[in-house]
Each structure stands twice: as C-alpha cells, then as structure tokens.
C-alpha cells in the first residue's frame, strides 16, 4: 500500500513542478486542483478498512481543493477579465530550479528525521516539505493575486500531506486542516473578486503598494 501512496505523492511532487513552470493562470489552477484530487485519494489508500471519518476527510478535501476553490478562482479570473499571463517576479526557469533543488533537499532532510516504522518507507515527509517549498516560491515569486492564492493552496497541500502522518492518531487535527481551505475561500470571495477588483480594477498586486514604511 505504501507503494501506491508513494506513487501518488510522486505525482503530487511532479504537479508542484508543473505549477512552478506553468506560465498561464488556467494551467496553474488546473495543476493545483488536480493535486487536490490526488491528495484527496491518499487517506483512502492509507486505510486498511474504510473509516467514515477518514472518508469524510477525503471527500471534503477532494471537494474543497479539487472542485470548489478552483472553480471560484476561475470565476474570479473571468470576472476580473485579466490577461492570463502570470508575469512573475522570479522567472519560470529559476523557479523550476529552486523547486527541483528544494525537492532534493527535502528528500535529503527527511532522511535525517526519525520516523515511526509504519512511515519509514513513505515519501510523505519529503513530499510535504517539497510542496510547502513550492508554495512559498509561488507566493514570493508571482505577481498576480490568483497565482499567489494557488501558491498558498499548494503550501497548504504540503501541510495536508504532512497531516496524513497523524491521520490514525488524531483525525481531528487533520480535519482541522480543512479550515485552511475556508481561509482561501475568504481570500477568493471576500477579497479578490469583489473588492480589489472594484477598488483597483486589477488583480496585479504590484498595484497594492500604497501602504509603506
């Protein structure tokens, strides 16, 4: 079972790189939502027999990360009819290199950390770290608000991955993680679509620099 799980995690890590490399918002959003679905599947794989709590987590995750938020983002994109280019602060190639290097570093680092026997073989920790890193790179390196939201979501996927380590012992904590999606929901609905669009008629955060010092 660990092998299947690792397969999925590998997939997620690959999606990180795609997200880093994608130069247009729609593709970024697609990568992110696909990663969400993948993450949603994982708990089911980790369980020998079906537990309804776990099922709930899986369902919520898939719904939230895979469907709702991406659709919100797409709607935002359309509402704000912004050009689809991402125009980054950190270029795509550097981002990719950073991401790849980060992934390798994550694997190396994860080896030094003590793990429980049942997690020994799994890629969960390196995967989590890699996604967190990817998320940060996107947050720091992208100008478009929506791109940053995607970055945040990937960061959060990393945390979710890590949470899976605890899903047996403390399911509640992991479920709590779902709350993060709520944050993103607030980002998207509360701020981007209506407000900033109206106030700045743009979603380019480079315009959001009135407040300084």
């Amino acid at each position: 079972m660990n092998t299947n799980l690792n397969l999925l995690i590998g997939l997620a890590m690959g999606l990180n790189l795609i997200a880093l490399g994608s130069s247009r918002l729609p593709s970024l959003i697609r990568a992110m939502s696909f990663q969400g679905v993948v993450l949603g599947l994982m708990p089911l794989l980790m369980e020998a027999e079906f537990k309804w709590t776990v099922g709930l987590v899986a369902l919520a995750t898939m719904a939230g990360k895979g469907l709702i938020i991406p659709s919100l983002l797409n709607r935002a994109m359309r509402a704000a009819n912004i050009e689809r280019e991402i125009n980054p602060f950190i270029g795509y190639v550097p981002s990719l290199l950073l991401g790849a290097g980060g992934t390798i570093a994550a694997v190396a680092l994860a080896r030094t950390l003590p793990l429980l026997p049942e997690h020994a073989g799994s890629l969960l920790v390196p995967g989590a770290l890699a996604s967190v890193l990817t998320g940060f790179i996107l947050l720091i390196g992208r100008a478009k608000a929506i791109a940053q939201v995607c970055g945040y979501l990937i960061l959060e996927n990393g945390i979710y991955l890590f949470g899976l380590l605890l899903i047996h012992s403390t399911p509640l904590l992991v479920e709590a993680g779902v709350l993060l999606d709520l944050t993103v929901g607030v980002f998207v609905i509360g701020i981007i679509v209506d407000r900033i669009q109206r106030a700045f008629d743009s979603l380019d955060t480079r315009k959001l620099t009135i407040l300084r010092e």
Partner: protein
Amino acid sequence: MISLLLIFLPLAGAALAALWPDNRTRPWLLPAVGTVHTGLTFWLLLNPPVVTPGAWLAFDPLARAVLPAVSLLFFVCATYGVAYLRVRQERPNRVFVALLLAVLGLLSAGHQSRHLGLLWIATEAVTLAAVPLLHFNGTPRAFEATWKYLLVGGTGIALSLLGSFCLGYASLHGGGGGDLTFASLMAQGTCLSRPWVLIAWVLLLVGYGTKMGLAPMHTWKPDAYGEAPGIVGALLAGGVTTVAFTAILRVRAVVSAAGEGAMADRTLLVIGLFSMLVAALFLLGTRDYKRMLAYSSVEHMGILSIGAALGGAGVWAALFHVWSNGLTKGALFLSAGNIRRAAGSASMDDVRGTAVFAPRSSMIFVAGMFAVTALPPFGPFFSELRVVRAGLALPGHGWAVAMFLGCLLFAFFGLTRVVFGIVDGRPRPGAKAGGRRFVESAGVIVPPLVLMGLSLWLGLHTPAVLQEAWSAAVVQLYPQP
C-alpha cells in the same frame, strides 16, 4: 460550564446582532454582551474553577491570568463603539457588530483551549472573523491592508498548523496515544522526539509570532492598524495578539518539559530583541501616528517575548505587561481614532495643533504616550521595570538588558517626536474631516479616560488577586518537579 458560556454567549450575541433589524440600536448589543462577559470573567477570576486535567477547554490559571484583561478591554471598547458607530451612521454596522462579538467569543475560546489543535482552530477563526472589521472603512487602502493581513496572517496560520502537526508527530513518535492536550504533552516530557520538537518549536514560534506581530513577521501590522477603526486596532493589539502570546507560552512549556527550555528561551530572547530593535528604528522615522501605534505594538510584543524568555519572574512580568500594555494601548488607539476623525488625516505632514481642535483627545493621547513609554505611576512602567529586574537577576543577560533599554530609549524618541509633532503648533487651515466638525462627546472621551485610569490603578495598586493569578499561571507554565 461557565467557560463554555464565555464562548457561546458572545457567539449567540453575534447571531442576534446579525438578525437585529435596526442599525441605530444594534450597537447597544456590544456593551450588553461585554458587561455580562466581563462580569463572568471577573467572577471566575475571583473564584477560580477546578480544572479537570484532561479537559480540552477550561478556565485554567493561564486563561485566568490573561482573559479578564481582554474581556475588560472589550467592554470599554464596546462602550466606545456605541458612540463611534453613532458617528458613523452612514455605514451599515450589521457585520461589524456581529463580528466584533464573534471575535470576543473566539478569543475566549483561544485563551481557554488547552488542546493544541483546538487552540489552532480558535486562532484561525479569530483571524478570519477579524477580516471584515479591518475594511469597515471601505477605502482602497483598507482593502489593501486587509489583503496583506490575510495573506501574511494566513501564511503564519499555515506554519503554525504545520508546527502543530510536527509536535503531534513528536508525541506520536515518543509513544504518545495521540492525546494532544498540553497537559499530556508536558507529561510526556523528554519522551518527545527531540528533532520533531525543535522543528515544531521553530514553526510554531514563527506561526504564532506572525499573529503576535513579532519582527520580521510584523509586516501586516502597520497596514492593518493604520487603516482599521481605532476600536478594532485596540482589540487586535490588546486581544488577538495575546491569544498568540499565550499559545507561545503554552508551547514553550511543552518544549521546556521536553528539556529544550534553554533553546526556547534563547530564540524568544533573540526574536524579542530583534522586534524591539526593528520597532525602534521604524518609530524614529514614521510620519503616521496610527502606524506609529502599530510599531509601538511590535515593540511591546518584543517586550512580552523577552519577558517570556527570562524564566518565572520574567513570565510574571510579561503577564503583568499584557494587562498594562493592553489597557494603555487601548486608550492610545481610541484617542488616536478620535484625532484621526477630527483631523481627517493620519499623517504628521497634514496634521498639526490637534490640542486646539481636539483638546481632550490630545491630552489623553499625550498621557497615553507617556504611559506606554514607561512613565510612572502608569502600569507599563512597573511591568517593564520588572522585566529589567528579571533580566538582571539572570547571569549573563546584561547585554540583553542594555539592548532592551536602548531600544526603549529610541522608541521614546520616536514616539515623542510624532506625538508632540501633531499635538503642538497651529492647526492647518481646512484640514477637516469632510468639513464636519468632530465633537468630543462623552461617549468617545470617557472610555479612553477609563482605560488610562485602569492603567494608573494597575500600576499604583496592583490588585493582590491579579498578582496571585499571575503567580498561579507561572506555576502552571513552570511546574515544580
């Protein structure tokens, strides 16, 4: 279960406010709920309940040492809020009132939660609930501030969740049964897996430190405080930050139980001093008196974390400082809000001579400035002096104390520069809020005055019950083996 009542009463109040039809009478819900809440907390302060060891939510000594301050601050701000919202008739206040009450409820939850996950959830919820409060003014500046608050704060939240996971995994790895109440984590002690504890500490410190506004994670603060109404600023500075601080205290207790106390104190000391330094440098140059308050708040968060790093006496002083700073800052935020409305701008460049057109608020503002820069006999003087004393009591902390005092000095320079800069002089002609004269009604003057009075009373005659409560909290955080 009064501790639950403390949480659900405000939430119920929030629901009621959401349904309340009348924009003019709705604000009265704030003081109404505030009164009951404050009454309850002080009743609990006077006769503390017994805490069942495994409880996830309880009015434990730490909550008892801090929550009453938050509740008191909320109450005074609520009374101010009535007058304030009357001035702001033009804006619908349904969301505002409801969420203020919600914030109170969630704050109570955060202060009382004795469970890692629950604590995180409460903090998260407070963060989200505060969002609409920030852009109550509806200006583009306000939205920009909110956006930054959300993204920076959200990152912090995410990191603290990751940290919580790591701590959880440390306990799991140490053979814990997945019970993540702080009590049981502390009970596990050195069984906790050391690498995971270290990682967890760093992540949690950065995460909750972001919420608290420690440099370099403070960047959201000036924007948020600068653009939010004074009442919201007061609650953020005096209430929300304290949840993060108590969270750090609780985690620190676990870490030191795991035998890493020295490391934790070192990091706390360094980040605290760094925050004070950054704040002092910014205060020397800032030209906006509301952002000035934000930097001053960063400075005082630094003081708190330094206090937390200085052992039992230091934590005692820090808890004292939570009270004194929260109340005094409240007075500053409220009077600054008045001045902002009277002058129509928050920048030194276009505000002068507020003593002429807003004499009372200016007086309170100056007094509050002196109080917050440790002028006796106001509260902060005593708490900061105790921090210094605690630092000098520890061997090898002389440099830290010296730096601490130096930062206080430069912060003083900056604050006096800005405050006297706007208070003195001859008012600029025509710098008015929409041409409408701002009246310093009792409703907007008495609350900050009351807060100053409380700060004075806290300093001159610190109530024995509070001292006892703080000592009890110290015992909870530093259990004697």
